[in-house]
């Protein structure tokens, strides 16, 4: 029989029962020794780890290791054989990059926080690590006593701090910025302690000062200008500063003004037509705009088959892009002003880049005016910036309903993905010169950049296509039902969501790209790994130190990729706010 029951009181919520902290022994038994089999496995794996650590420690701390070759060759690692009397140029570019990084940190405030408890625990762990190293180290190791003392001191400090903090260890939070600043200070201290020449110490100090100043400037600008403006400026600055630094500051080209003036026969008409076209398109009906855009597309293709200056070809290409993008700048008087400003900017930037690009470098250094980490950075950053728009275009092309675009994109992606990067690099280093007119002989670095860009774009395109396919059909329908054009729907609705969805894949792609830059050593460029593998061990005072240098190179690559993957994790969490 069913009895009728009516609840008389609503039960208020209660806090969850307190979780009991399990002791270390309980934890060990639950996780490592919970059965006979697990005990055997734990012992075996533990032995392997111990033996490996002992071997590694023995290698790293062996008295025969000459780690001092690395600080001694810091210039080789940073910039290679760049003319020493012009070394300030490379420091200037590093300083500008640091400045942009500082601005970016201020604009995209890192929201991560670290508790004092985490810092104390890290200090304690470092102490334990030093103690373990000292105990494991083989007999040839001389610094056992120092390591034991240092480890014990760190352990005691960390443990004492943890106990003093007590319950507050996890409550009180420090912004990551403080930790970051502490890291920079630590870097400076190390810089001045190690036997590094003062010609390296002083510029590095200035570079770090530039980053700190830029952070302050950025924070000060956010209030009057607003965060979005600052962010856009940082992006624009980065896009413009990098080519200027690498093409202008570091190469110190002699600008051939006669050739710049020579262009006028082509350039001035194109600039004028450009203004007429974008002004017309921004106010025209769709059909009329489509006709103008169609003419521009045809012209920008035809110009590659007649004898026209390279600058004219690129300018026409950019004009077509600006004209096609005109609807996204808005309509009416405001839209017209925006598109005129955009076209003016494009003309100025492109002409400037061309002038300095065709100029002959005055610093002749056997084509190796870029080397070391300087070259590695350029080969990673510039292709990534260029491959991104290209990859997005290819992804959109491959998902497009227009068969010609689809065919072109699919063909490009499948061909590039079917070929190893080394082959692409070889082709661009040795093969492509046969197809170019005699006057146009780009240097090896530019060819490598093009090769890596095209390679990365194909993979990026596939990642982004995956993201596009994950967008539910309803998103397209909702956008269309409100009267959005296909371009608006793509730029505002589907592409932003697709890019968010594939951040992990894109980060993986960037990390791969960063490591793949080491492949350019086979076409004769002295990037970071080649410096570590050939150049430094070949110095008369550094013979027989290949292993030290390779270990150092591995650590440097790891530090960069690890930092990157951590940063991307935070980016994912932050962008995850709007995810269903």
């Amino acid at each position, binding site marked *: 029989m069913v009895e009728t029951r009516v609840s008389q009181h609503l039960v208020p919520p209660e806090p969850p029962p307190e979780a009991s902290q399990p002791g270390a022994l309980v934890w060990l038994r639950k996780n490592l020794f919970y059965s006979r089999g697990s005990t055997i496995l734990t012992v075996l794996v533990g032995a392997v780890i111990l033996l490996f650590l002992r071997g590694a420690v023995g290698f790293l701390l062996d008295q025969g290791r000459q780690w001092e070759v690395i600080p001694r060759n810091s210039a080789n690692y940073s910039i290679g054989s760049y003319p020493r009397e012009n070394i300030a140029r490379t420091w200037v570019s590093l300083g500008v990059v640091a400045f942009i990084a500082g601005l970016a940190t201020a604009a995209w405030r890192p929201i991560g926080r670290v508790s004092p408890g985490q810092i104390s625990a890290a200090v304690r762990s470092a102490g334990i690590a030093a103690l373990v190293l000292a105990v494991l180290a083989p007999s040839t190791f001389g610094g056992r006593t120092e390591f034991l003392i240092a480890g014990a001191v760190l352990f005691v400090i960390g443990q004492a701090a943890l106990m003093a903090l007590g319950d507050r260890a996890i409550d009180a939070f420090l912004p990551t910025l403080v930790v970051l600043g502490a890291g920079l200070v630590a870097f400076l201290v190390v810089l001045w302690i190690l036997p590094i020449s003062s010609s390296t110490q002083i510029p590095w100090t200035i570079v770090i000062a530039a980053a700190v100043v830029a952070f302050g400037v950025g924070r000060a600008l956010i209030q009057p200008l607003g965060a979005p403006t600052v962010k856009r400026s940082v992006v624009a600055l980065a896009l413009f500063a990098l080519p200027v630094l690498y093409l202008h500051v570091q190469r110190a080209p002699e600008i051939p003004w006669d050739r710049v003036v020579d262009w006028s026969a082509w350039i001035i008409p194109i600039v004028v037509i450009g203004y007429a076209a974008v002004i017309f398109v921004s106010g025209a009906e769709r059909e009329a705009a489509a006709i103008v855009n169609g003419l521009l597309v045809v012209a920008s293709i035809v110009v590659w088959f007649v004898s026209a200056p390279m600058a004219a070809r690129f300018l026409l290409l950019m004009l077509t892009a600006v004209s096609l993008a005109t609807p996204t700048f808005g309509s009416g008087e405001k839209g017209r002003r925006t598109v005129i400003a955009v076209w003016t900017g494009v003309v100025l930037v492109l002409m400037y880049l061309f002038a300095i690009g065709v100029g002959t470098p005055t610093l002749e250094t056997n084509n190796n005016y870029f080397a070391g980490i300087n070259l590695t950075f350029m080969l990673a950053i510039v292709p990534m910036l260029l491959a991104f728009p290209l990859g997005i275009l290819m992804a959109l092309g491959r998902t497009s309903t227009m068969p010609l675009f689809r065919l072109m994109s699919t063909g490009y992606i499948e061909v590039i993905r079917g070929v190893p990067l080394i082959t692409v690099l070889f082709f661009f280093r040795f093969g492509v010169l046969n197809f170019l007119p005699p006057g146009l002989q780009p240097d090896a670095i530019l060819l490598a950049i093009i090769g890596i860009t095209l390679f990365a774009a194909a993979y990026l395109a596939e990642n982004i296509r995956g993201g596009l396919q994950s967008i*539910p059909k309803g998103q397209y329908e909702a956008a269309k039902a409100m009267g959005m054009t296909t371009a608006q729907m793509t730029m505002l609705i589907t592409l932003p969501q697709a890019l968010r969805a594939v951040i992990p894949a894109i980060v993986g792609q960037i990390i791969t790209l960063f490591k793949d830059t080491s492949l350019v050593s086979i076409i004769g460029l002295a990037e970071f790994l080649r410096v570590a593998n050939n150049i430094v061990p070949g110095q008369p005072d550094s013979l027989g130190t290949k292993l030290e240098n390779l270990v150092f190179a591995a650590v440097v690559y790891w530090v960069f990729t690890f930092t990157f993957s951590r940063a991307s994790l935070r980016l994912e969490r932050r962008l995850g706010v709007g995810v269903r």
Partner: protein
Amino acid sequence: MTSNGKKEPIIVCDGVKKWFGDFQALRGVSTEVGEGEVVVIIGPSGSGKSTWIRCINRLEVHQEGRIIVDGIELSSDVRNIEKIRSEVGMVFQQFNLFPHLTVLQNVTLAQTWVRKRTKAEAEKKALDLLERVGIREQAAKFPGQLSGGQQQRVALARSLAMDPRIMLFDEPTSALDPEMIKEVLDSMKELARSGMTMMVVTHEMGFAREVADRVVFFDQGQIIEEGTPEHFFTDPQHDRTKLFLSQIL
């Protein structure tokens, strides 16, 4: 047949046919909807009623017959389909809010890009409409942080922000918990009283009885019977209609 014979037709369908592969979803649908009229379409699932109203803003493309919306015929060479779509708002069963934008941005986006309003105008309009559907205080949140009923009201505000002349509703309450259906229906009733032309596919018979000017019973890709709610719920003529009503009432 002109409904009620009192107003100019704003939507005209004449022999609309549509196939998915070999399956014929619409078998010749002909009717007219007058300006300001509220038409509720009911019928079993799979009967083609959603396909029909999706043809009216051309999310589905009909293959035969004529559809004329606000004086413009929808055909394969129709220009400016975006312009027609911006006059015809639509609310979907699954809300289809843009998850990467806040509620306010969801409502302002198409206003600024399609209607070319300034940001200030668009935000004022958006906040007024969010107020009207009773969720102004949620403007800064993301869709994923709202309940289903709130999301659907955002979707309604998003459509209304375009100042449409016609609103289409494709089972707007079918994905909602029973407790939330009422808040969405109340907003829709308020809209109907303001004189909006509405075509509503729904299973909410109470809504049909209270708000509809005309009820259309749809089955097997065609209109079986249509008429006023009083006629429809008290004196249905066709056997199929009687069977359907006997099963749901």
